[in-house]
């Protein structure tokens, strides 16, 4: 770590760990409800658990992206953040808004739009919070000694993410129009601008961990984010097939969303190639595992599993079933969770000055969580395919079909236990690292490798 203000990232990462743990707890509540063990129904009905589970994911990933930006931008711009105090104000206000929203969900206070459940009043506070964050990042970047492609791509992703939040705040009388513009936020975030943020973090990590020349990595970063937007923007059409809008989206969405895996394939090839091309002597092996893992798993989860049901002919049957949940879990895990865990794994030794980066626990956390998540995804996939067949081919009643797929949720819960154990170990390691220290500023072994 070169700049003291990078320490602020630690507290963002700490909030990530807390919210991630909570998200898993609510995931278990949902899983048990699906097998009939819904003893918490009177206090936490399924719709509350679901809203909390998905919104915590969004909030903690955004918190992770913000922490990553506070860590990466000073190093890329070669100067301290313009204001550490304001960064802490931003963190605290983000946590307060998040807690208020989550608490409200337990008292039937929400907007009830999938992924955008946060009430409109709190939306305005989110906007102020994000503006403050962007102000700090942009001011730091443009006052800095240099503006690198990595920093610019990442910042562009963060600015677009903020702008795209706005269409989700408009009220529409029609459910169709509402749904149409809700996807401007949700799809263009996760299959568009978030990939810029992911690409930026990935490029930063590859530069640091492999020692490959920045110019080479950043050139391919442009190609990857170019492919992302080229396919992802018009790929939004795969959400418009069957919601009551024009048939033109069947063609446009079908063609462009079928191209979406290309960006993820490029990202996976890029990461593996850079690793093979680069130095192999960076001591932080755990960060390397998470980095390369993110690139590969995102290709499988977001790319291949997305492709599996993105064509209109398939989606006609899978739209609105557990098949979507299967894809969603592995896509978010690979593309965004793993990259945030990668930057945390990379930054922690540098922020705290404690080199705990090749402990058995770290490897255990990686493999247990990855195998557990894979098992969960397979269980969800099987449940989804069975649901499609029984409900949509054999005209079986929804609840009768649900009874038939119950067993797959037992399997999912078992795999989720393995996954949670892995994440538990990751959080334990995070805690063991301790707080940021100023002596970390003087330890800079990496400079030798990268220079």
């Amino acid at each position, binding site marked *: 770590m070169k700049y003291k203000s990078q320490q602020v990232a630690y507290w963002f990462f700490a909030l990530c760990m807390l919210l991630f743990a909570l998200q898993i707890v609510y995931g278990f509540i949902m899983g048990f409800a699906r097998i009939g063990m819904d003893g918490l129904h009177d206090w936490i009905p399924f*719709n509350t658990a679901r809203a909390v589970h998905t919104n915590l994911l969004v909030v903690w990933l955004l918190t992770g992206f913000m922490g990553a930006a506070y860590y990466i931008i000073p190093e890329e711009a070669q100067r301290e953040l313009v204001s550490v105090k304001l960064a802490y104000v931003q963190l605290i206000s983000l946590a307060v808004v998040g807690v208020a929203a989550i608490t409200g969900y337990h008292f039937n206070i929400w*907007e009830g*739009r999938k992924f955008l*459940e946060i009430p409109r009043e709190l939306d305005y506070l989110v906007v102020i919070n994000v503006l403050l964050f962007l102000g700090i990042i942009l001011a730091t970047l443009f006052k800095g000694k240099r503006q690198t492609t990595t920093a610019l791509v990442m910042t562009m992703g963060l600015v677009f993410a903020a702008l795209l939040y706005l269409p989700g705040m408009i009220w529409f009388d029609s459910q169709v129009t509402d*749904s149409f513009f809700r996807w401007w936020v949700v799809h263009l975030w996760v299959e568009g601008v978030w990939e810029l943020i992911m690409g930026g973090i990935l490029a930063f990590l590859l530069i640091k961990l492999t020692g490959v020349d920045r110019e080479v990595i950043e*050139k391919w970063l442009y190609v990857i984010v170019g492919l992302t937007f080229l396919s992802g923007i*018009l790929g939004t059409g795969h959400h418009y097939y069957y919601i009551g809008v*024009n048939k033109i*989206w069947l063609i446009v969405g079908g063609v462009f969303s079928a191209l979406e895996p290309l960006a993820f394939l490029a990202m996976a090839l890029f990461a593996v190639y850079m690793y093979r091309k680069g130095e192999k002597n960076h001591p932080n092996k755990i960060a390397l595992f998470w980095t390369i893992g993110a690139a590969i798993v995102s290709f499988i989860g977001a790319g291949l599993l997305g492709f599996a049901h993105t064509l209109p002919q398939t989606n006609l049957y899978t739209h609105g079933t557990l098949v979507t949940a299967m894809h969603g879990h592995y896509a978010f895990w690979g593309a965004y969770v793993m990259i945030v865990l990668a930057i945390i794994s990379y930054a922690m030794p540098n922020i705290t000055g404690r080199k705990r980066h090749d402990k058995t626990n770290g490897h255990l956390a990686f493999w247990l969580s990855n195998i557990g998540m894979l098992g969960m995804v397979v269980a969800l996939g099987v449940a989804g395919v069975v649901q499609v067949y029984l409900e949509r081919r054999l005209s079986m009643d929804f609840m009768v079909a649900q009874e038939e797929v119950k067993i797959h949720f037992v399997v999912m819960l078992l795999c989720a236990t393995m996954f949670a154990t892995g994440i538990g170990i990751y959080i334990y390691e995070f805690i063991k690292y301790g707080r940021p220290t100023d002596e970390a500023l003087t330890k800079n072994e990496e400079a030798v490798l990268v220079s």
Partner: protein
Amino acid sequence: MLSKSQARTFFLGGTVVTFLIFIGLTIYSMAPSNDQSNHQNITEQVIKGKHIWETNNCMGCHAILGEGGYYAPELTKVIDRKGAPMVKAILQSPIPWAPNGRKMVAYEMNDEDAEAMVEYLKWIGEIDLNGFERIVSPLAKDKIKD
């Protein structure tokens, strides 16, 4: 070999072109002549129903137009399948509706709110979904007019 500036041009050019096409297609889709949702049938009651749908986060369990929680039945064609009186009764029940033991929140809606929900669901059920209306709820398929 591709240079960095060519790669940047590919990124910026591709983004601008696809975004402009996307905006064009959005305008085309939203044109009244391309409406498939019977927009003119959106009454005050339908709007109220949508508001109730959202403020109770019904989408957290149910799905509509194929979007939602997958924990409770798809409701796009629920009026066809169950009939308006049954739907009203479930919404007004003081005891949680629990088919096969899976509980719904007991909303105990008043007559006015339950009626608005029925009108909203009726409007949803009439939307042209590019063929999905025949798949999403096969039990209602026989009742869909050609």
